[in-house]
């Protein structure tokens, strides 16, 4: 499904990501680990088509990654940092609107309700983004990228700002997506998340 072939990123003399190769099959979860500055987020950006590698190639399916390609946008859901949030929409409005642009109306209602329930956001459905705590905002961000169909999910440190209980929820939500056939690429510092999800793990070494 995902074929990363000797992908590296440099900025002049500075290496942001040392060359890495990995193959991930459909319905597999790849965990990307490594210390700060080893290029985890950079690798995810390359996979998401937001950054061109200075060496190597990435293929998702049969196609070379292109973040502007319509088909690529349809197949790949990405959360690197928090997704943009509209200040004038509640949590429920947000998730519903995202779902309504991807699937038909009947399915959108059910999809948004189930994502909100899975992530424990039901009681926060009527809150505006500025009324959420940092951990709740992280869960809300995840809900936005999950409220749509996708074949590949790329997530950078989903455990950020979450307590151990919520990390467990995130693990079970992501595992459910993987079990339904989605391919996951998750960068994380959380041992619990890596252990609970990984089919394959790569450790990035110091980039420089």
């Amino acid at each position: 499904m995902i074929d990363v072939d000797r992908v590296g990123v440099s900025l002049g003399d500075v290496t942001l990501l040392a060359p890495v190769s990995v193959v991930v099959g459909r319905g597999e979860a790849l965990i990307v680990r490594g210390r700060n500055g080893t290029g985890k987020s950079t690798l995810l950006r390359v996979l998401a088509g937001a950054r061109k590698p200075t060496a190597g190639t990435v293929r998702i399916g049969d196609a070379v990654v292109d973040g502007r390609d319509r088909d690529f946008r349809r197949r790949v859901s990405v959360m690197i940092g928090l997704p943009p949030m509209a200040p004038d929409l509640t949590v429920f409005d947000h998730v519903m609107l995202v779902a309504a642009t991807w699937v038909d109306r009947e399915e959108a209602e059910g999809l948004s309700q189930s994502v909100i329930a899975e992530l424990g956001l039901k009681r926060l459905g009527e809150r505006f983004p500025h009324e959420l705590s940092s951990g709740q905002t992280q869960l809300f961000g995840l809900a936005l990228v999950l409220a749509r169909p996708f074949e590949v999910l790329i997530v950078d440190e989903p455990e950020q700002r979450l307590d151990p209980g919520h990390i467990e929820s995130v693990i079970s939500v992501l595992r459910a997506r993987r079990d339904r056939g989605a391919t996951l690429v998750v960068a994380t510092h959380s041992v619990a998340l890596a252990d609970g999800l990984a089919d394959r793990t790569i450790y990035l070494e110091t980039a420089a």
Partner: protein
Amino acid sequence: MSNRTHAAMAIWRARTIRTAGDRSFLVYMVFMVALVAIAPVGRAVWLSAVSPGGLAVLASPAAPNIAALIVAVLWACALLLGRDRGAVIRPPFLTHALATSDRPRTEAFRGPLLRSGGLVTAACTITAGFVGASLAQHALTDLLGVISFMSVGAFVGVIATVLWLAGQVFPRPAISVAVALLAFGALTAAVPGLQAFTPWGWAGLAYPSNSNPPAPVALTGLTVAVVAATPWLMSRLRLNAMTVQAARWHSATTHATGMDFGAAATIYQGRPHIRRRTRAVRLRGQLAWIFFIRDAIGATRTPGRLIVGVLALIAGGVILAFAFAPAAPGWLLGAAAGLAVFVGLGPVSDGIRHAAVVSADFPLYGISDEQLMLRHAIFPLIVTVIVLLAATVVCSLIIGTSPGAAIAGALSLGLLGLVVRIVNALKGPLPPILLTPIPTAMGDPMAAVRMAWALDGLLLAALVGTSAALAVGAPLLLLTAAGIVIGSGIFRWRSRR
């Protein structure tokens, strides 16, 4: 100020010791800004005040009533301003350090209050001086009348400062008091007999052409009373409210210093707090309809902003109608209408700003970035066109000009104003190339270029307004303005990532 407070302030100020050269440059800069920017504006205001047209306004029988209304509006605005940016603001750290110390608020925060008060009082006194002096120029009052009115201006400024502080101390009641002030101010302007019974009316009664000796005395008494209440008000300043206001002001000034005026304004933008149970996303009809309803309900969740936006659009329409009147300075009124429309579009174009942010991020919605932007443009376009057209047509009929040209102008202004808003939403950070100094014999022109970049939304809005107002006589100007605005939009759209 006690020795301890004085010592704390000395430590704080010692962080940034300016050399003699730095101080000299500061003095030079202030002098040059005053000479180049402030003095010509002051001269222009003075010349228009003493011109026959200006004199007709200042010496009209309605002038005292309007003066009373302006004072009521000023005091209401001071109360409302205090809710978000009070008269007593220090840097965040200093605010926390001093507010959590055992020093009384009157001592620790006297400086900022005096500075705020000085600014407001000076502005009011100078304004009153301008009015009085222009009337004296035409022998409609004497020197004593001018001095008396200036002292009334000073009293109005002092009272405004205390109300500013009161708004900071009591943010919730400030709204209702301000609304009451506005309502009674309008009533007093309509029924001049009430002037003797209202403080703002006393300012009207003290107008130079309407000299009424008891009025300044009454205002003096009121000023003494409110100043006496100041220590009581200051002692009620809450730590949390002060630190929040200090942090917001610090962020806003930091953004403004970096010429990111949009971000600075966003910090003070009202946040939604009502209609949370009304579903903004209703899964009926086409996606365009879903986005229209979503934007409409989203806008009503900050009703204050929406009202201000609609009022600004109405003002834009009215000004545009006047721009088409014979012998009116069309270009100037058109520019003012463009600015009003730009301001009015702000509260109804939250969706456009969201679409701009989404378009520069990872795909979130299942439609293209272009479709997302277009769908978010529907609500502001409809609101703008309806409000602008209604205001322009009604005003044209009232003032007796032909509404045909005004309608065409309103449509052009509404459409291009929306494009300016989209261009502004796609702006992004300051391009580093603009930071490159280009030394010339006349100085560094890049400072002006950076300022133009920072204010490009307003400049484009003024250009669009002017071209819409002159569209009948100079259609080429409208086409050029449209080309510039649309070209800027395409350029920014293509370079958004």
